[in-house]
Structures are given as structure tokens and as C-alpha cells.
């Protein structure tokens, strides 16, 4: 007898706009999310703040007043500047090489069914999920065995190796959502294979190519572990900072970190707005 009533009551109660429970509904989770975001930004805020610290001596540890001096003397430490330039050059080269190679793989995997595509995917998956230290150690093993001199180019080789799969995955995802009938239309209208690619396919997959290449740039400029193994005497920005930990980080590092962060945020925000318009 009661079951029917309960059922009736239940349905009316549950037919109202659905709420997922006091806990899951969100207040607490909303606060939690903001706490986590605060946690994530805490070291960034410290880094930015101490780029404005009027510190004396090698230790930038206690707040001693506001200054813009470090922005003016950004390039006062020669080997730090060299390290930053190295990092930018390596990241740029990585972006170009991995961008092209990854795009080609992404096209092949997204468009064609072929024998060996499974193997290709497996190798890419292994490269993406492999521990960095294993990749660095094995590459160094090979370079040492073959007596390859370590330096700038071994670093570029390593960076292209670990970022090419990320580009390929990003491009493949884009290729798979592109409408193929547009290409067929281009062919029907007399475009050659190359013209179709240049005028139709490439513009359509370009957002994927751009995203993948930027990812390669970001992965390269931030890499420490693999670079540490294969760079020999070439010092990059992360390597320089790591080396300076024991003797004290000069405020110029904070400023460079802040500027890189700023550029990254700018690109991300522009991209987000661009994405909304599309």
C-alpha cells in the first residue's frame, strides 16, 4: 500500500530540477576547486613577487623593498642569457622539426588504414608514457657507445624524439573530425592532389598543427630531465636554474620566468578567445 504512495511521492520529488546532493551539488566543491587553484598559483605568485625584490647580494630570500631594477638588468648575467637563448633556439627548432614530422604521422594515422599503423601507435604510446629518465638514460647510452659528442644538436634530437608523438596525436585528432567531402569536392572541381592538400586539407587541419607545434615548443623549453642527460656542455634555461640552486637564484631568473609565463598566458587567452569566435 505504501509502496505506491512512496513511488508517487518519489516521482514528483524527483521530477523537479535534478540536484546531485548537498555535497555533490557544489558549494563545497566550488570552494575546493578555488583552494586547489590557489595552491597551484602560490609558487608562481612568489616567483613573480620576488622578481620585484630589491635584494642585495646573491640571496633573494627576504623582502627588501620594491624595485624594477631586475627588469632593466634582465640580461646582466651573461651565461644566464646564453642559456635562455639556447633554450629558445632549441625549442624553436624542435617546434619546426617535430611539427612537420608529427603532422605527417598524424595525417597518416588519421586518414589511412594501413598495416603497421598499430605498431606506430604502440611506439608513440610508449614514447608518451615512458619515464623521461629512461629516455634520457637510453639516449645517453647510445651516444656514449657511438662516441657522439654531446651538445646542442643531441639536445635537439632528443627534444624532437619526445615531442613528435604529442604533435602526431594532436594532429590526428584534428584530421579525424575534418569533413572529407570538402576534399572530394575539390578533386571533383579539378584540383590536383597537391592543390587539394595545400588549399583545402592543410587549412582545415591547421589548428591541430598549430596546437601540436606549440605543445612541442612548450615541452621543449621546459624540459629538464632528458636535457640534463644529453646536453653535454650546452646549458639551457632549466639547467642553468637547477645548477644555481645551491648558490642562490638571482632575481633575473624570476623576471625571465615571469615574462615567459606572461607570454604563455597571453597566447592561451588569445587562443581561448579565438576558439570562442570560431
Amino acid at each position, binding site marked *: 500500500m505504501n509502496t505506491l504512495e512512496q513511488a508517487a511521492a518519489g516521482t514528483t520529488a*524527483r521530477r523537479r530540477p535534478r*540536484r*546531485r*546532493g548537498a*555535497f*555533490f551539488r557544489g558549494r563545497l*566543491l566550488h570552494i575546493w*576547486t578555488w583552494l*586547489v587553484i590557489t*595552491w*597551484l*598559483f602560490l*609558487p*608562481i605568485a*612568489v*616567483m613573480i613577487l620576488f622578481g620585484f625584490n630589491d635584494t642585495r647580494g646573491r640571496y633573494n*630570500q627576504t*623582502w627588501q623593498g620594491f624595485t624594477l631594477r631586475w627588469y632593466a638588468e634582465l640580461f646582466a648575467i651573461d651565461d644566464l642569457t646564453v642559456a635562455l637563448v639556447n633554450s629558445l633556439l632549441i625549442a624553436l627548432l624542435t617546434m619546426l622539426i617535430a611539427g612537420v*614530422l*608529427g603532422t605527417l*604521422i598524424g595525417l*597518416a594515422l588519421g586518414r589511412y588504414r*594501413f598495416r*603497421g599503423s598499430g605498431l*606506430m601507435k*604502440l*611506439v*608513440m*604510446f610508449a*614514447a*608518451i608514457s*615512458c619515464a623521461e*629518465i*629512461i*629516455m634520457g*638514460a*637510453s*639516449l645517453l*647510452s*647510445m651516444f*656514449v*657507445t657511438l662516441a657522439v659528442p654531446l651538445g646542442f644538436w643531441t639536445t635537439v*634530437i632528443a627534444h624532437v*624524439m619526445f615531442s*613528435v608523438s604529442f604533435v602526431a596525436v594532436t594532429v590526428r*585528432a584534428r584530421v579525424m573530425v575534418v569533413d572529407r567531402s570538402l576534399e572530394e569536392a575539390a578533386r571533383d572541381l579539378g584540383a590536383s592532389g597537391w592543390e587539394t592538400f595545400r588549399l583545402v586539407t592543410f587549412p582545415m587541419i591547421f589548428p591541430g598543427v598549430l596546437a601540436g607545434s606549440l605543445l612541442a615548443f*612548450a615541452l621543449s*623549453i*621546459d624540459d629538464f*630531465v632528458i636535457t*640534463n642527460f644529453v646536453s653535454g656542455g650546452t646549458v639551457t634555461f*632549466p639547467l642553468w*636554474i*637547477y645548477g644555481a640552486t645551491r648558490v642562490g*637564484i638571482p632575481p633575473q631568473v624570476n623576471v625571465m*620566468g615571469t615574462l615567459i609565463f606572461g607570454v*604563455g598566458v597571453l597566447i*592561451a*587567452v588569445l587562443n*581561448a578567445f579565438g576558439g570562442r569566435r570560431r
Partner: protein
Amino acid sequence: MKGSRLRAALTPYVLILPGGLWLAIFFVVPMIVMLSLSLHSGNITDGFVFTWNWRSYLDGIANYHDQMIRSIGYGLAATIITIVVGFPVAYWIAFHGGRRKNMYLLLLLMPFLVSFVLRTISWQFFLADDGILLGPLKRIGLLPDDFHILATGTAVVLGLAYNFLPFMVLPIYVALERIDPRLLEAAADLYAGRLQTFLRVVLPLSLPGVFAGVLMTFVPACSDYVNASILGGASNTMIGNVIQNQYLVAQDYPVAAALSFTLMAVLLLGIFLYARALGSEEVLEVTVR
């Protein structure tokens, strides 16, 4: 006609050739070289010879099993922290983010535009014994003078959790975001309470995301040495520190290679057992996507 069909069949191979070769030469071959190197004997001055020398493995495990076990422990702890911290965040963004979803994701990712090493050093600076967090607390007497966070396992684990959090949040978010809202309605229609809906519908459907997240967090966390060397002390070194030191300072390549291989084997075994336990297939698809 036949020629063009042949060309069409060859096209994908031509496309993957340069990138595939790059991966083969600089990713696959080095693994084999490292395996061979781990079976060499000799030293850096006299050179190394291949001798099927399994001793390096035994020596490596005998001398460094502490670091190996500690790495797994720290990696596990950091992974669990990222799940506990990150799951609610992913859940909230996926189900309550509304039109601001992308903004929240962007906020989560933004800190990672700052170099990994720099972020970790910033934590070292923040948590320093007399730094901006502990200094004032000690001065007003809330903490004893000898209290410290740096050079402890806690600092290393927190650093790892901090650095790898997005690798956990993003895959979980993607899995949750894909859940059809009609499934939640169906659960409610079938008299599932909120907790029941969560436990029986949302949680199982989020597991592929959690799986990918664990994979992307546990592996780098176990093999990291940056956090241990910046935030930890001499008693918190991980296997990564040892491998790095053996390769770049001691230059005892066979032992270094043997340790790297042992680490890889342990990680692969861990992933395999975990995959079996969870019964999750298409790991590749989940992660690559």
C-alpha cells in the same frame, strides 16, 4: 589506374617514414643499446666490453633497493594525493563548470607555463626553514624553532603531487565530461540516491580517466629526481637521483643502465598488474586520446 592505387597504398608509409625513423633511431634503438650496455663490464678509463655481465643488476639492486622502494612509495603517495585532490576538482568543473569550464581548465594549466624546475625552486623558497611561511609562524611561537618541512619525505611527495596534478585532473575531467546526462537522470528515475548515483554511475564511468591519470602521474612521479634533490634531503633520495648520479657523475654506465632497466621493468610490471586488476582495456586509446 594500377599505379595510382599503388601510390595510394604507399602514401601512409611515406608520411610516417621520417617521424617513424626518428622514433626508431632515437627511441627504440637506444633502449636496446641500453640493455646491451647494462651487460657490459669494465670502467670508464679502460673502456667497457660486452660480457653478459649480470652482476650490474645484482649490484644495483643490492646497493640501491632502498631508493627503489622509496621511489615507488613516494610515487604511490603522490598519485593518491593527486586523485584525492584532483577528482573533486575535475568533478566540479565537468558538472558545475557551466559556461566557465574552459576558464577553469585554463586556470588549472596556467601555472605549468612556468618551468618545472623554477616551480619546484619556488616551493623550496616558500617552504624554507626561515622562509615566508615558516619564518613568521616561528617568530610568533606557533611552531618550534627547529620545525622544518624541507628535507623531509613529505616535502618531496607534496612537490611531486603539485607538479603532476594536471596529468590527473585532465583525463578524469575528459571521462566525466563524456558522461551522458541522461544516465544520471535514468539513475534518479530508478530511485538511486545521490550517493548511489555517484558510486554506481559516475564513478565507474570515470575509471578510464582515473586509469589514464594514474599512468600519467605514477610513472613520472616514481622516476623523478628534481623534487627529491631540491625539496628533499640526503635521506630522501630516489632512484632517479641514483641513476642520474651513476650516469653523469660516477660514469659507471653498466650499473646505471642496469638500474634504469630495473626501474623500467618495475614500472611496466606495476602498470600491467594495475591494468589487470582494473580490467581496463584500450589503455592505448584512452591515453593517446
